[in-house]
């Protein structure tokens, strides 16, 4: 004697209904990823997931192998982008306002931890990017065919440090301006291009020095002879727009290349 099929529970029926609507189907072009076909489709039809291949070596997803350090670095980059955007609502990059805007942020916003997340996330990102490079070196993953991607990585490393460096100035407190002063003083000593660099004295037109405190590498970096209004604006623009834009593009290339170079490295 055949029994009648159990009626589906309410939630399952709702789910079925929702996933059958035209709206849902227009967004997701696959069913639940519980069949191999759908697992492929999930990765291939999603712009974010398709940075991944569809299948991957088991050794490549072991945490012991990648430490997920590149992934964490990227994650921190996203966190920084998001919290940075919120901070931009409150922060004005001028000598008159910058410091007070930061103080207000701490005093006026209840339970506001955006600045904290942004600052600690930045420190963390510097650490994770070092550890990621360290992992990639230790597994020899820069060897052919991944030489180029290692180089993209090195540039990303430099950009990460520059992001952090430019951000360091923005609170406009004693810590900020003096750290940047110390850091940018180095540019004074650039060979030929810094006014205290070796060889700069040789660049003269008649009696006129070509490289002096008002025309050297440091001046170009700071937009002035010292860390002031010009430097604050320059660093702000680089920090919020210039460097993130370049870093974002390079990350896209970096991930794409991980795939194109045959996925996470493994013994041949």
């Amino acid at each position, binding site marked *: 004697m055949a029994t009648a099929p159990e009626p589906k529970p309410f939630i399952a029926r709702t789910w079925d209904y929702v996933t059958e609507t035209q709206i849902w189907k227009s967004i997701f072009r696959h069913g639940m*990823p519980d069949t*191999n076909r759908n*697992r492929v489709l999930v*990765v291939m039809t999603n712009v974010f*997931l398709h940075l*991944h291949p*569809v*299948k*991957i*070596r*088991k*050794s490549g*997803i072991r*945490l*012991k192998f990648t430490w*997920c350090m590149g*992934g964490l670095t990227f*994650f*921190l980059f996203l966190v920084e982008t998001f919290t940075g955007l919120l901070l931009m609502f409150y922060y004005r990059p001028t000598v008159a306002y910058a*410091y007070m805007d*930061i103080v207000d942020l*701490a005093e006026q916003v209840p339970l506001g931890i955006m*600045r*904290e*997340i942004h600052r*600690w*996330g930045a*420190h963390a990102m510097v*650490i994770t990017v*070092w*550890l990621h*490079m*360290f992992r990639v*070196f*230790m*597994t*020899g993953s*820069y060897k052919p065919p991944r030489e180029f991607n*290692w180089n993209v990585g*090195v540039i990303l*490393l430099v950009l990460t*440090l520059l992001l952090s460096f430019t951000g*360091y100035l923005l*609170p*406009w407190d*004693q*810590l*900020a301006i*003096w*750290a940047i002063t*110390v*850091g940018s003083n*180095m540019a004074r*000593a650039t*060979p030929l291009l810094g006014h*205290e660099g*070796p*060889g700069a004295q040789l660049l003269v037109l008649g009696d006129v020095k070509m490289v002096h405190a008002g025309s050297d590498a440091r001046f170009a970096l700071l937009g002035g002879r010292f860390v002031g209004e010009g430097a604050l604006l320059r660093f702000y623009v680089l920090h919020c727009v210039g460097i993130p834009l370049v870093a974002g593009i390079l990350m896209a290339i970096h991930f794409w290349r991980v795939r194109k170079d045959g996925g996470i*490295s*493994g013994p041949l």
Partner: protein
Amino acid sequence: MGAINAVKDAINFLTAPAIFISLAAVLFFIAVPRRAFWTRRVAMVGTILGALFVGVSMLDPDFALIVKKADNVPIVAMLFLVGFFLWLSLSQAHENDARIAAGEPPVEGTPREAEKTWVWPDLVYTEMLCMVIGMIVLVVWSLALAAPIEEPANPARTPNPSKAPWYFLGLQEMLVYFDPWLAGVVFPSLIIVGLMAIPYIDVNPKGNGYFTFKERKVEIMLFLFGFLILWVLLVLLGTFLRGPNWNFFGPYEYWDLHKLEALNNVNLSEYVFVKWTHLGLPRNMLLRELPGILAVLFYVGVLPGLLAFRHRILGLPIGLKKYYDRLGPWRYAVFVMLLLSMIALPIKMVLRWTLNLKYIIAMPEIFFNI
């Protein structure tokens, strides 16, 4: 009390740059190649000792003052993280070496590991887990520790010490040994160029895609020496052990603004013309600096060639003929210049610590000091 102070004094003494860096370097060369140092037990003992050291030291007000500075907390965390991941990579490397020696593939190369699996769900879930844990850590950390804000910027009041952001403190520490044009411009550029050159000058095809030490000993030792000793260690030194006037202060020492350090550093020219030959310093700058110029020219001009054609020099196995043969002239030239630049720092350090040598070439007239 007496015993505690004796221990503190001992640690203050041992952390002075000359001793600290030398000890770390010795430990580095002993420990990294030996499997016995990278077992679970050593990791556990190391973690516990490290945590005990930091924990107990927090009772010391001077130590606590520096370590509790909000911006320094991540650097303490970094110390443990670097230690942990060093262990994680080297323990796997030595394990794989043992497997390879026994004729087995490295762990990453076993059929089970080489098998392919689905990105969804396996990888995507791992990534999500990392993200969730990362987010939790970040939120807890942010709730617990407020972001610092100091007094408003005041261009007229220079704080002492004035420090660069923490990740550049290794470079600032280099300023003790080299002038800004080298420590702040040339060496950082060379670090970047050197990192970029690695895939092109390392022609060893082995060790691609798995942890191993034996198959890439020299590469790993060189890279780790740069990363651990010349970068991370110097960052720690610059953060925790450098106080006012960039003087050295032990971890339990009060940062005294008026601490005096005898500065009796001597230039090579003074050694040659005053101390050794009693000729008196020549007036002419180039003549005066001739010994140093010759030394530097030898270092960058002659030494690379010498190393390229010898296996041993003065009986020591420091010749690079093997590498010259393997790399060919162009790769070798890049490799040896990067190598010599990297070693220049420890060489200058040792010269400073032993001979109080200030500059090898000193031409302040044209800002050219080495």
